[in-house]
């Protein structure tokens, strides 16, 4: 039978195996820490990515919507709520007449029926390709050349039928392109040119969709996306638009809208950072106490090692290695458990929080993984450093004679 050398690593593992309850209890402490660190960091970054994605995607500086419908507009953009509202198309020309306005592009909102595309109602947004600056720049997959009449651009979460179409009001529409993922309501929205929207509007009316009296696709629009001309401030543009429209519309400043979403997010993020910090300090304190107590209990065991020829350095490295194995085991367990929750359930978490939520890319995930692993794995050796030093300095003779 081959005998294995009693190296520091093997001795540490044997010591840990000898006290399974204590080992697993300490692993659990570090696992909780790494769970919070990894899970919290992935969630934090997903929320930040979501807000940044929405900010990029909105594109417009100002959005003009009917009076009292600013919250509904947020609902469409952030949650992808299938809401529609209309105002007189004359507003578009009024906005365009403002000196501070560089581009003003109209949009027309519809909502699909529940039982058709995608299993539930989704927003269908009509846009004007000639003036649009908020939809077309975000096309990532082009399935056909240009957007023709009867074709649709879809958000990343829209699932096509087997023939590459989507069903709206009893008719199939070909998907021409797919938009970049944002983690917001844009992912569940569909976009079409105004002439396709005209067909959809007629079909929607035939299927029983309710539109307020006087609303037609020819004389109504839902919103105007506005880009402010260089050299003009946002406030100047706001004043001019308000004057031109005689204050009969709601003017949404996209930055304020993002700030209001991001503002509530700021609170959540600070809590997450504080909780992660508190857990790290608590784990350090708890492990320091446990290592100190157990090192005290094992004084005679270490003195015996000294008698058997172990150097002082060997004793301290034995304690540090045991602590490192505990931390590494806990870190891997905690990160593994967190990964089993934050990745498969990411859509559910985002939906529950009601804010744009976009998972970090692979590079960011690897960085978070590395950071959490290092922070969790060093907690054990740090906590046991004092005990390791104390044990290595103890006098063997006095330790063995203690209590006599």
């Amino acid at each position: 039978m081959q005998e294995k050398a009693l190296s520091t690593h093997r001795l540490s593992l044997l010591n840990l195996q000898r006290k399974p309850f204590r080992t697993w209890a300490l692993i659990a402490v570090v696992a909780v820490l790494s769970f919070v660190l990894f899970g919290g960091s992935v969630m934090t970054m997903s929320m930040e990515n979501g807000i940044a994605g929405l900010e990029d995607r909105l594109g417009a500086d100002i959005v003009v919507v009917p009076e009292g419908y600013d919250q509904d507009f947020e609902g469409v953009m952030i949650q992808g709520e299938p809401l529609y509202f209309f105002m007189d198309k004359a507003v578009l020309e009024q906005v365009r007449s403002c000196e501070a306005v560089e581009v003003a592009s109209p949009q027309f909102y519809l909502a699909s029926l529940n039982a058709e595309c995608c299993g539930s109602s989704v927003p269908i947004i009509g846009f004007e390709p000639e003036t649009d600056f908020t939809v077309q720049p975000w096309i990532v997959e082009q399935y056909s050349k240009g957007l023709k009449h009867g074709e649709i651009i879809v958000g990343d979460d829209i699932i096509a039928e087997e023939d590459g179409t989507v069903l709206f009001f009893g008719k199939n529409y070909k998907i021409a392109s797919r938009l970049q993922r944002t983690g917001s309501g844009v992912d569940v929205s569909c976009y079409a040119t105004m002439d396709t929207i005209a067909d959809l509007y007629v079909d929607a009316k035939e299927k029983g969709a309710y539109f307020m009296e006087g609303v037609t696709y020819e004389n109504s629009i839902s919103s105007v996306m506005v880009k402010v001309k260089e050299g003009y401030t946002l406030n100047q543009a706001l004043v001019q638009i308000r004057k031109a429209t005689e204050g009969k519309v709601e003017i949404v400043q996209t930055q304020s809208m993002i700030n209001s979403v991001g503002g509530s997010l700021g609170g959540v993020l600070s809590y997450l950072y504080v909780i992660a910090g508190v857990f790290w300090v608590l784990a350090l304190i708890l492990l320091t106490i446990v290592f100190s107590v157990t090192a005290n209990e094992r004084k005679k065991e270490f003195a015996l090692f000294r008698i058997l020829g172990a150097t002082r350095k060997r004793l301290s490295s034995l304690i540090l290695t045991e602590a490192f194995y505990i931390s590494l085991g806990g870190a891997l367990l905690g990160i593994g458990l967190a990964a089993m929750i934050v990745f498969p359930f990411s859509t559910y978490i985002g939906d529950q929080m009601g804010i744009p939520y976009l998972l970090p890319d692979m590079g960011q995930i690897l960085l978070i993984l590395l950071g959490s692993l290092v922070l969790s794995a060093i907690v054990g050796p740090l906590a046991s450093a004092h005990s390791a030093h104390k044990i290595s300095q103890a006098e063997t003779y006095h330790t063995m004679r203690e209590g006599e």
Partner: protein
Amino acid sequence: MKNKYVVGALLLVLGLLIAFGPQSIFPVCEFNPEKPMKCNWMGKAELGVGLVIAVIGVLQMVMDHAKVRQGLSMAAVLLGVLVPLLPLKLIGVCMNVHMRCVTLTRPALIMLGVLTVLVGGLSAFALNKVEK
């Protein structure tokens, strides 16, 4: 000997979660009698599969013969494979990626299926060494 109770208890808990989770803890979409959705049928299928896994868990605790327990563990592995296949391929879930059955039920069942395969597989592997 102690392992048979641990494996049995784990399979029992996993089986019950697979059987009743889609109706309670991680529910599928609400049942609409006019237009029942795929996820409703998938939930019912998981009820059957989960209950069989739970019964295997009980049998693991009752049976003494190692080879019988190994056979039961192998059956648990096969059923564990079936658990994620039902929402992913065989029946499916709703189309809208934001529906509860897609965001919650499906990932939960995939995870429980993987755990069932792991528990059953490790048990079968460990019992391979036992001669009885």
